[in-house]
């Protein structure tokens, strides 16, 4: 009896009907998510429609909103992948008629795994360099952190507090970090805000410090434009002389908050997360070449020196030709300043990605193409054979 139920569950899980339903949900989600991007931007839509377990989409009519509950993209993709593994690979009885379909399903499974590995294990960010500048770390596109370090030291040791510990406005006391003579209390974190001086017409809802406050702003459609802010309080751990100090930290400020405690100076900054690279990059030369007579870039390229320990390697990074080494990939992605006049010095911007499944999509593409070719060519040959016979009959 139990075996029958398990079989039924497996049958259902591997059925073509379930595949059809899941793909229909994915189609609806993709369609609605694409339309929503015009209003809410890519990042928000990606989180809400494609990386969620469930959501409610609102059809906005002029006189009312109609809600439509939907399974999220993540849930659909998990069920779809299970369906693919069960129905398309494990339970498929391979014979000479359907081995092409089996190959296709294996290819799709490889591609889905590539997506999963990317989602779980990849990091990405950017690296901006002026000519002659060197860097061995890149900056995250979306993630923020509070970084604490002691100033005036030859070796800077940073203590980092990741965004998920302080975001969503909760009051958080960061555990005393070994070696630091204070603890930090973070409160009133805002996802997107402006730092403004307090005036007669404006009083912030969050605490005002030094005549300044944080004004909450609606989330921008492009996540890179959101500038978080928070209130931070330094509480000395063991000092009768030192008193607590408070400050506002805002993502748009270019300098850290500094304070002295136990005769040591510290700085705290709210900034995008920095990732270390196993090598450093020095920009030797950046060149942007326009099409003649117009302001459209024909190509832009960076000549860099990659320094790994003792070795220096000169590499050219350009569009469609990145630098790949030690699990990292550096792509030529942009340049600036965008309003630079001809002859002005330009900086080069690289996208930096760590993706263990970097080449998997290519392998999956080859596998899927082979499977499809086998399946459809066989179908076509049998169709053309039938048609030829039919024509012969008509001719007779």
């Amino acid at each position, binding site marked *: 009896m139990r075996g029958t139920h398990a079989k039924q569950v497996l049958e259902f899980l591997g*059925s*073509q*009907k379930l*595949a*059809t339903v899941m*793909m229909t949900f994915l*189609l609806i989600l*993709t*369609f609605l*998510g*694409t339309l929503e*991007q*015009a209003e809410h*931007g*890519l990042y928000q*839509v990606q989180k809400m429609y494609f990386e969620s377990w469930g959501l409610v989409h609102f059809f906005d009519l002029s006189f009312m909103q109609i809600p439509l509950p939907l399974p999220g993209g993540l849930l659909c993709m998990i069920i779809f992948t299970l369906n693919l593994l069960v129905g398309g690979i494990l339970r498929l009885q391979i014979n000479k008629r359907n081995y092409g379909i089996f190959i296709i399903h294996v290819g799709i499974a490889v*591609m889905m795994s*590539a*997506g999963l590995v*990317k989602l779980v294990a990849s990091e*990405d960010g950017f690296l901006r360099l002026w000519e002659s500048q060197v860097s061995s770390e890149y900056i995250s596109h979306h993630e923020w952190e509070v970084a604490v370090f002691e100033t005036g030291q030859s070796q800077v040791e940073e203590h980092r507090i990741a965004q998920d510990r302080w975001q969503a406005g909760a009051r958080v006391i960061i555990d005393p970090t070994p070696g630091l003579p204070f603890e930090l209390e973070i409160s009133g974190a805002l996802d997107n805000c402006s730092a403004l001086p307090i005036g007669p017409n404006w009083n912030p809802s969050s605490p005002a410090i030094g005549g300044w406050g944080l004004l909450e702003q609606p989330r921008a459609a492009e996540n890179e434009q959101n500038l978080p802010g928070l209130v931070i309080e330094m509480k000395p751990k063991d000092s009768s002389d030192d008193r607590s100090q408070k400050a506002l930290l805002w993502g748009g400020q270019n300098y850290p908050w500094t304070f002295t405690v136990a005769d040591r100076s510290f700085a705290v900054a709210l900034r995008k997360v920095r990732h270390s690279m196993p090598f450093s990059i020095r920009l030797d030369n950046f*060149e942007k*070449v*326009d*099409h*003649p*007579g*117009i*302001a*459209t*870039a*024909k*190509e*832009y390229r960076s000549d860099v020196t990659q320094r790994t320990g003792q070795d220096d390697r000169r590499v050219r990074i350009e*569009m*469609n030709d*990145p630098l790949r080494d030690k699990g990292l*990939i550096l*792509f030529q992605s942009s340049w600036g300043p965008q309003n630079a*006049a*001809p*002859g002005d010095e330009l900086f080069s911007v690289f*996208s*930096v*990605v760590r*993706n263990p499944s970097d080449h998997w*999509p290519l392998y*999956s*593409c080859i596998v*899927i*193409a082979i499977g*499809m*070719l086998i399946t*459809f060519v066989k*179908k*076509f040959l049998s*169709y*053309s054979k039938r*048609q030829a016979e039919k*024509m012969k009959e008509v001719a007779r």
Partner: protein
Amino acid sequence: MKLRISILIPLLLLHPALACGQTEPDVEIAPAVDLAVGMTSESPLTERAPWSSETLDAIAHWPLQHGGRVKPFDTYAGFTMLKINGKRILRVGDEKLGPVAWALDCMIYPEIARGYECIQVTNAQVLTNVGIDVSDRKRSSRWSFEELLPFLDQIFRSAGQITETKESSNWELVERQTVQLAQNIRSLEELFHVFDSARHTFPLDTIPELRAIYGESQGRTGFSSIIMGVDGLEQLATRESILQLPPERQTEVVNALQELQTHLLQQIQIARMGIAWFAPEPPEDAPEEGQDVLPVVWGRADTIVEDALLKKPVALRAEALQQMEAMVAAREISRDAFHSQAAMVLDSLTALASHHGQYSTIAMEVSFYKMDYFYRALICFLLAFVIACIGWLRPASILPTRATWGLNLLGITLLVTGVTLRCIIQGRPPVTTLYETILFITGCCVISALFIERYDRRKIALTMAALLGSFGCFLSMRYELKEAVTAGDTMPSLVAVLDTNFWLSTHVTSVTLGYSAGLLAAAIAHVWLIGKLFGIRKNDKDFYRSITRMVYGTICFGLFFSVVGTILGGIWANYSWGRFWGWDPKENGALLICLAELIILHARMSGLVREHGLHILAVINGMIVAFSWWGVNLLGVGLHSYGFTDGILRLLMLFFSIEAGVVLISLIHRGFQKHLYRRGSSGSAAST
């Protein structure tokens, strides 16, 4: 310190663009220059002798650099005319002017061309807003520059206000058209002034010292006359030379040089808005191996003067300029003299371009536009469709089928030839812009339909080939007009990331093949749905089964290319930007097609849908293809916003409405039929 440096060089430095290299002028909404300048004719001409075809042919082949690439004058004139006039032909009296003749008139006889009614204004409100009375004009009539002249200030002021106060994405239709009108007038003005410097008389005989350099002849015109005596001018303009003159002469010489400087400055300013005809002088040294080769930047007439003043080599360019100026002067002599000068200019410009290897495709491009392959293909497909319809009325006759085959094959040959020539001219794969997707998808639809017909022979796919070929060619011609307005060309220079032939020829080609298969399947599915709706060949089950097989097979074909193309796109993105999938609208569009086609196949295999459902889903898939092809570009977000789709929305909504109507009516009809069938069954059961 030489006076040449103290007077003439500062003259150049007044204009930073000269020091910073050339860029084509941005769209500025202001009158170009004083229109009185350059209109030197004392008694304005009202007519001119017709141009000979040899002259037009020679000038059509003149190379120039525009929009980042080297192209023939024929292409430049064609798109300028299309942008301003809305079509490539203008009737003036009894004469029909093509693009080169029209542009030549504008350049050589501006006083006559100002009266040509060649400015299209599609919305009368644009004109009434600036106070022009349109009551006695037809909607389709064009306006002459002369007619709009009294209102130019208002037109440019309105356009300027719009561009300054609003983002272009927020412009209302009438605002967009106002800006468009201002830009068109500006383009026309630029043509009127192309040869101003050639007509301009420089004051080279005002003092004995200048006469000693340039001779006694009166009325020397054009930059080349200045270039000819540039060494003598340099000698005269040195501080030492001036100081050596008797004191009473010094002031007169300086004044004469300053007057010359004023004239030169004015003409350089005008020439800077002209056409970049002149490739640089041949390079002295070949580039070293491994050295980056920079793009060759062509110059206008002003750059030759500036280079001559800066002692750079100008010999070949100066000769070409001198011939060009002689050609302009020859309008007063004879058509033969004009032609021989035009031919000499062609030789000189060709030689200059050839030194940089940039003339090889000019003749091919001229012949490409002359042949008008896509228009001829449209005629063939239209005829094929009409004959195919006649064939349906006379099923026993074999002649219409053969004629339809012949015309379809001729049409597709023309289309493929045109696309191939475009590939050779541009040196890149067939699909790089939205315009090119139309041509490629049309070609693929027609070839696929003919391929299906080869096996099926029921004339369904044959008729579809003609219908889709006609529609595609018509759409390409309409969209060409949009490209003329926005890009001034259908072969624009590509942004850096697209400049890769490998990915363009694999990913883009595969995805567009997928589009074409999806559209073809949807088109054939209509035959099934409409046939069932109207009860055509009601009892011929084989006919309907055959259509189903066609649709199913085409969807399989489309799925292959859609899936492979979409994954290849992801791989390209991964290798260019470091991410395989970014949920960009265009990527999502491709995914939608893959999902829709996978749903169709799985739903059919699992028995969720039968024949009717398959065709309904195929039509919906066609709508998804249209959304992916055009619709996502309307969202204005993402990395793939390469297509100008303004004004497409209405057409797209019309398409969606019609298709939704087809689906809905078909579903209602199907439901009604089922209801009748059930009633019939229960009635017969009751009577039994």
